[in-house]
């Protein structure tokens, strides 16, 4: 029976392809693929149906299916195109086969349906697998990219290091932050670390806990942490949640935090020329160059 069915499909493949194309074109109008050019759509349909027919004949290797799915994935066509296409194919093929059989009772219908299913199923499975593999690949790439961005550490001066945090902090990221922070403190010989949470949208008890743990660990290494970038709404949530940050210096902006860090490390910023002097110079020398005279220099006191 199975072989017969296969033969029937192969014999009538022209009719099947025709009906299938008609159906699939109907789908196009009301559906996702409406912005794809007719030509490309036609071409891919042709290929798709060939792939189906080949793999039903048993002549098409799995490579054929794989090549096709690779191309569809590369074009960014949705998975539903594939599944719809195969469902339509099943329906069309069933119709045509049932037309060939003179006497249709429930048994033959049942058997035809089951056999068609067994023919179409492997293709569906393989195509869906290809799709999910490609998705997982994308997701894992994105995760790596995200991790690279998740805990940068910037040594701005001798002994002062800044870690700007952006985005929500979950447990996994908090762990990563802590590791990076501690390694960075050792590597850069940092005395003060500024943790900037300007870009952290929500600070709940869990985030606070993680931050607190990180700062405590930094203290054990022998460096100081300053928490900066605390926005008004963050301050409100912290107090409302009853989180105690009292033994951790906090500042509203990175600038203020940096000043505190300079104080701790016994440093100060000294302006070499003040503005009025620069102005005098400019007025005195009409040919005065436009170079920046406002050099600031860092001095260790």
């Amino acid at each position, binding site marked *: 029976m199975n072989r017969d069915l296969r033969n029937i499909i192969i014999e009538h493949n022209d009719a099947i392809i025709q009906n299938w194309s008609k159906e699939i074109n109907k789908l196009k109008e009301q559906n996702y693929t409406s912005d794809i050019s007719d030509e490309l759509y036609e071409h891919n349909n042709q290929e798709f149906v060939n792939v189906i027919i080949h793999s039903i004949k048993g002549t098409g290797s799995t490579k054929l299916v794989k090549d096709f799915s690779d191309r569809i994935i590369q074009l960014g066509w949705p998975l539903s195109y594939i599944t719809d296409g195969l469902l339509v194919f099943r329906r069309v093929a069933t119709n045509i086969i049932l037309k060939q059989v003179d006497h249709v009772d429930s048994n033959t219908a049942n058997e035809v349906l089951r056999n068609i299913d067994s023919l179409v199923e492997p293709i569906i499975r393989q195509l869906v697998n290809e799709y999910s593999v490609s998705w997982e690949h994308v997701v894992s790439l994105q995760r790596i990219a995200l991790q690279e961005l998740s805990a940068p550490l910037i040594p701005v001066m001798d002994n002062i290091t800044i870690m700007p945090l952006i985005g929500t902090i979950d447990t996994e990221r908090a762990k990563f932050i*802590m*590791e990076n922070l*501690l*390694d960075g*403190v*050792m590597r850069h*010989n*940092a*005395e003060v670390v500024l943790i900037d949470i300007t870009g952290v949208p929500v600070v709940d008890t869990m985030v606070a806990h993680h931050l607190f*743990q990180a700062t*405590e*660990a*930094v*203290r*054990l*290494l*022998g*460096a100081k942490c300053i928490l900066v970038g605390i926005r008004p709404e963050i301050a409100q949530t912290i107090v409302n949640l009853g989180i105690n940050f009292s033994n951790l210096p906090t500042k509203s902006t990175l600038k203020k935090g940096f000043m505190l860090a300079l104080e701790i490390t016994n440093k100060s910023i000294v302006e070499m020329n003040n503005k009025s002097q620069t102005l005098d110079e400019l007025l005195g020398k009409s040919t005065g160059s436009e170079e920046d005279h406002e050099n600031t220099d860092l001095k260790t006191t």
Partner: protein
Amino acid sequence: MRIPILKLHNYLLISIQTELDDQTAINFQEDLLREIHTTEATGVVIDLTSVEVIDSFIAKVLGDVVSMSDLMGAKVVLTGIQPAVAMTLIELGIHLQNVPTALDLEQGLLKLHQEMGE
């Protein structure tokens, strides 16, 4: 196994280079206190750079040593705690709240000097 305690002016330097077991830690505590007593040292630096594991008991002993030395008039600074060690301690909930720390021996000595200079 005894841990050597070195005297430098009125400081004591200890570099712990073995894995601390409970008995060694207790011996160390006694030795150090005796040494502080005999040398009348005013500052102690305990360097933990080569220590890779600190369990809760060792942490408690270290915390105790700091408080005890404080009582005897010697300031203690722990230096060179490794990132992994710090992380485990924090995860165990051991915060060593009253223990001064520094990044390395040099900064530890500076810190002692600052605290005692004033």
